[in-house]
């Protein structure tokens, strides 16, 4: 009888437990900045950065951009070049890496700007002056270009696409989107949420072409859209960076340091070789 509880005792105990859990939760968040500073205070205490969750680098991305980030068919876990990069960065910083659920691409920069949900966003985000007004970027970790994708055997060119009768699709908020509005002003630019929907649309003839990052175009065309073709490679030389809140400059510094270490110790090269067959 000693070990068993009456129902009232149980409820009291459960209530006490829940209460202490809530308190512990509060305590956890209020001490988060101080405990992260202990992680990094080997150099100086002003180098400390805040994290949404202690000991964890919380990452947000649009997980439909193979080979940079996509969900594994079987496990549903994020994988890809960017995922490997951010995992390596987190490892260098002595943190665990945790992905938030999939988010639409055009919400990533606003989400990081607003803060509080994720620490960084790595999603093949091109560093542009416009985005830099909202968030900070790490040093660039990869160079990229754009591509125009159309049906195989299509006679479309950049010139023929610039016509009022043409619909050119892209992922909303991407640099491809910008490129269309600036370079194909006469065509209708159709921004959609995900790359697969856009490419399917091109495949079925709903849209005349798609403008998307060249590595993604190459990957998608080899792996799932064999009846599409890259009709033009657009040399933009854009660079991908990791987006970090402007309120967290020390995190940017720490990420930059990790990226630098990865470049010098060959981690970056091995990730590039893993995903692109060679270093870029």
């Amino acid at each position: 009888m000693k070990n068993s509880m009456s129902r009232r005792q149980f409820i009291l105990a459960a209530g006490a437990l829940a209460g202490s859990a809530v308190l512990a939760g509060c305590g956890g968040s209020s001490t988060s900045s101080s405990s992260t500073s202990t992680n990094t205070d080997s150099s100086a205490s002003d180098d400390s950065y805040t994290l949404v969750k202690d000991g964890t680098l919380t990452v947000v991305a649009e997980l439909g951009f193979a080979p940079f980030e996509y969900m594994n068919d079987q496990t549903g876990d994020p994988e890809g070049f960017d995922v490997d990069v951010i995992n390596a960065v987190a490892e260098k910083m002595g943190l665990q890496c945790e992905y938030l659920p999939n988010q639409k691409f055009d919400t990533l920069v606003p989400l990081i700007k607003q803060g509080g949900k994720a620490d960084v966003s790595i999603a093949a985000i091109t560093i542009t002056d416009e985005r830099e007004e909202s968030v900070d970027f790490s040093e660039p970790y990869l160079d990229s270009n754009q591509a125009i994708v159309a049906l195989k055997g299509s006679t479309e060119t950049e010139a023929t696409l610039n016509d009022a009768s043409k619909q050119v699709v892209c992922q909303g908020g991407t640099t491809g989107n910008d490129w269309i509005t600036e370079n194909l002003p006469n065509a209708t630019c159709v921004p959609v949420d995900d790359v697969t929907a856009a490419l399917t649309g091109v495949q079925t003839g709903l849209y005349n072409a798609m403008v998307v990052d060249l590595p993604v175009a190459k990957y998608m065309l080899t792996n799932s859209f064999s009846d599409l073709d890259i009709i033009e490679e657009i040399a933009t030389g854009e660079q991908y960076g990791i987006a970090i809140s402007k309120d967290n400059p020390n995190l940017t510094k720490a990420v930059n340091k990790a990226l630098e270490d990865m470049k010098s110790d060959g981690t970056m090269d091995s990730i590039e070789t893993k995903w692109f067959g060679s270093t870029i």
Partner: protein
Amino acid sequence: MSHMHENAMTRGESHHTRRLPLLALALSAALVLVATMALLPVSALAMTTNKATARPNEDGGSGVIGAMDTRLTWEGTVGGDEEVSSITLSLPEGATFDHASTRITVLDGLNRTSIDGTATSSGNSVDVQFSEGIPAGSLVRLEITNMQFPADGGDYVVSGSYTTADGQSHALDDSAAITVIANTPLQAAVSWLDAQPWVAAWNSNPFLGMFFKPQLLLTSFASLFPGWLVCLGIVLACYPFAIVLGLAFAMLKTSRHKVLRAIAICYINLLRGTPLFLQIYIMFFGLPMVGINIDNNVLGVIVMAVNSSAYLAEIFRAGIQSIPQGQYEAAASLGMNGFQTMTSIILPQTVRRVIPTVTSDFITSYKDTSLLSSVGVMELMMFSKNLTTTSGNITPYMAAAIYYLIVTLPLIKVVGIIENNIARSERGGGPRPKRRAVAGASQQASKAEEELAASAEVSHAETAKPAADVFAALSAPFVSHPTVDLGGVADGE
């Protein structure tokens, strides 16, 4: 070139060593001459201007408006044998590069070359000095953010010059013209708002600035208008079809034949049991895959009509079944057949009862057209999504909300009025047929009250005045039934 150089050197050195400075002067003059002669005839090898474009800065539009921040992108290819050390771009008077920032990209094919530089802007020209010479054949892209074109619009070409590593300066080809729109009245209004202190104070509040930024609200209203028309067009075009289809399936579902009932049940349950979003995806991506290509807007109308018809079928079915059995019996006692009973007794009463629910469904359909934005129908939501993406502000969504409310709020009010009227008349409120003379002015309205009797008359006199009766039946719910004090009858008002 090297041959001449050697000759001059040997001559100078062997015979007149004292004249060395003079000779060196002549030598350098000769070199300059040779260099210019070498460059002049081979202008094809000089740096070429590939293109110059400006990012559209018209909210929701594709135009470039003068005197508003935009981004100029200039692209050129370095000619053969050249090494470019600086580039100067200039625009006609009125354009400004002040406060602009320049991003430099140098590419060899698709590969980025790490060459940096510094840009200094002054008035209508910008000068970019590169950290090292740009090798021949490279593509140079200069993206100049936050520059402005002249306010009065027109076609502007980007001209300029470049210097090579050896200090030579050459003119650049003019770019293709960039068409700039003059500042519009709308834009002028926005500029006026920009200058107002209360607007600045309003926007400094993060919530108000993010959700109700006055400038953006104004431009959003203007640029969302076509999207609103598309929304209205789609729902107005789809609804007649939806009603006809819905009525047909309601009949099938109330049919005595098992097979017909099964067909109707399958149709209704499949469409009501799956999200509209899924149906849109299936139709928009599925149909083209089997070779059926329909215009996006037309397909949108079809999907909305089919989806709505399932809900309407259920509404009509419920409406028909809510008519008391006595009405059928009364009709039968008057000698009507099934078709007559349906068209002149049951359906007119059904219409009255279902009008509030159908209006609610219309509101739902109107709002659901927003889902079509996901497949590229250029409707209200699509426009506001694009605007929000480009502006990074939620205000365009608020403008869209207002556009939706312009239609839905009056309709909701109408539903309320109809419901009240119906409730009152079904409770026995409103004028009695006997009191017609007393009611006087509400004669029109009282017609609806007598519709059973009226339709019975019709069946006897056959085509007496069916059009007027149908109109009366349909309009009855919209016409108020003035409550007449009937002495003892308390109608619960």
